[in-house]
């Protein structure tokens, strides 16, 4: 097994432990598989590791915790029921200010 693979597994365990300690509700924790939010946070952290190679291991761990927290927030927002007519709170304008 590669060192990177080993790291990833350990890292995943760490995030799951963090989630267990502080963030996820009981029923989610009862599952044997890592929660979907933990898997998502791991995937997004891997993306960052590729994109920002300068980040240290310690920094990545700190960022991963933040990403996990944010994934949980995103989950709560996804539960808000919206309709097709619910537009985002900004407006595109074709006119360029100051040009005419």
């Amino acid at each position, binding site marked *: 097994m590669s060192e990177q693979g080993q790291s990833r597994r350990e890292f995943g365990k760490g995030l799951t432990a963090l989630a267990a300690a502080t963030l996820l509700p009981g029923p989610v924790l009862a599952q044997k598989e890592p929660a979907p939010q933990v898997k998502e946070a791991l995937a*997004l*952290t891997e*993306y*960052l590791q590729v*994109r*920002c190679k*300068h*980040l240290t291991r310690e*920094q990545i761990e*700190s*960022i991963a915790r*933040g*990403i996990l927290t*944010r994934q949980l*927030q*995103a989950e*709560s*927002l*996804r539960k*808000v029921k*919206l309709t097709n007519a*619910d*537009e*985002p*709170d*900004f407006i595109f*304008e074709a006119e360029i*200010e*100051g040009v005419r």
Partner: protein
Amino acid sequence: MSQKKNITEAILFAPIREQTEKIRKGELSPVALAEAYLERLEKLGPKLGAVVTVTRELALKEAKQAEAEIKAGKYRGPLHGIPYGVKDLAATRGIPTTWGAEPFRKQVFDHDATIITRLREAGAVLVAKLALVELAGGFGYNNADASFTGPGRTPWNLDFWSGGSSSGPGAAVAAGLVSFAIGSETSGSIITPSAFCGVSGLRPTYGRVSRFGCMALSWTLDKIGPMCRSAECCGLVLAAIAGKDWRDPSTVARKFAWPTEVKGPFKVGILKDCTKNVQPAVKKNFEAALRVIEKFARLEDGVALPDQPFGPVISTIIKAEGSSAFRDLLESGECSKLRDKRDRTGGYEGLTVLAVDYLQAMRIRTRIRKAMDAVYARYDAIVSPSRATVSYPINRDFDQVYKGLGGGQLVIPAGNLAGQPAISLPNGFGLHDLPTGLQFTGRAWSEAKLLALAQRYQQATDWHRKVPPAAKEEG
């Protein structure tokens, strides 16, 4: 002979209206006033961690010009000859604009922000670029020591923070280092330092004041506003800086004039549960303030904000927009030069916000704005404490202090998401002799009403006229 010696403490701490009357009558020299503030900025500014750059040369040039114009009968209005400081996120041509952050310490723009241009046209005199939390606090700092200028200190007790992210404007106004200051708010950055420093700070409606030339943290949330010694001062400054600017497409051509015609009677809602989970002195001072307010306004208790996910929505928006605005900085690794440990990594999460999650937040925000307006339409203002606690000690992480306190604080993210205005006013003192504040919040474009209410409160109280001990010691 210089008139500097004639500048008494009473003049230095006087509201703009009193200073301007003396200037107009020729009893007070703008040059002498600028010199007096420059001296205080150089002497007291570093102690408070309030100053990035003292603009001595420019200030004296502008003050001399103001003095000559006034003598020649060309009077520009109430800010003519009045010295001010600006949060160091507003571009000033040829003078460093650091954004409070080490990676931008040597940044110099070749243009002025619109607020600088407008204040110059009004005849105001720029005496200092004032300190701020690095990058306006968008990366989640957790300590007062989060700027390359060191921690901002409130002049009421130097062991405590001046608040953020407009830390320099708060401390400088409170300590009499400037006549007024310009701050900015994305979510709490004018209200918090105004409360922690005991000054009057106005967060205008989104779109009221041009953001052109100011550092972007969140394009849809950033607002520029005045921090002053009184609500009336805020009105005078807002009148000078408000208005449409084609370089900032969010600005709107809505009229704002000060003094206002708004006289009342007023109907003011009291935010539901706003004194739960606050420090006892915050509660006591707020209740005392209500007894003053009820003399000129009809109060209605228990006004609830709509049940909406304010925290997750604003957090998603700030993270996504902030990380986009600073993507180059994040990807370069220059973030490691930021002062606060959490700031060095806090921006990276935002790079992983999915577009659909950001849009989900912005779609919910539309509902929030409408729901907030439906509540606020029933009142001229809603009142609550500005903050649940007094300021934080500078030597401890924020999350280790005042645990469990935070009543009513949703009004800050809620109001910012809705683009609504707010004003924070001093209303007494609490732990460690630190100031407490109350805030009036209102519907979009209701600044005149909020300021009129605030002015009535300040006509009946004198909290805004108190002078902090640190300002007296070496003044």
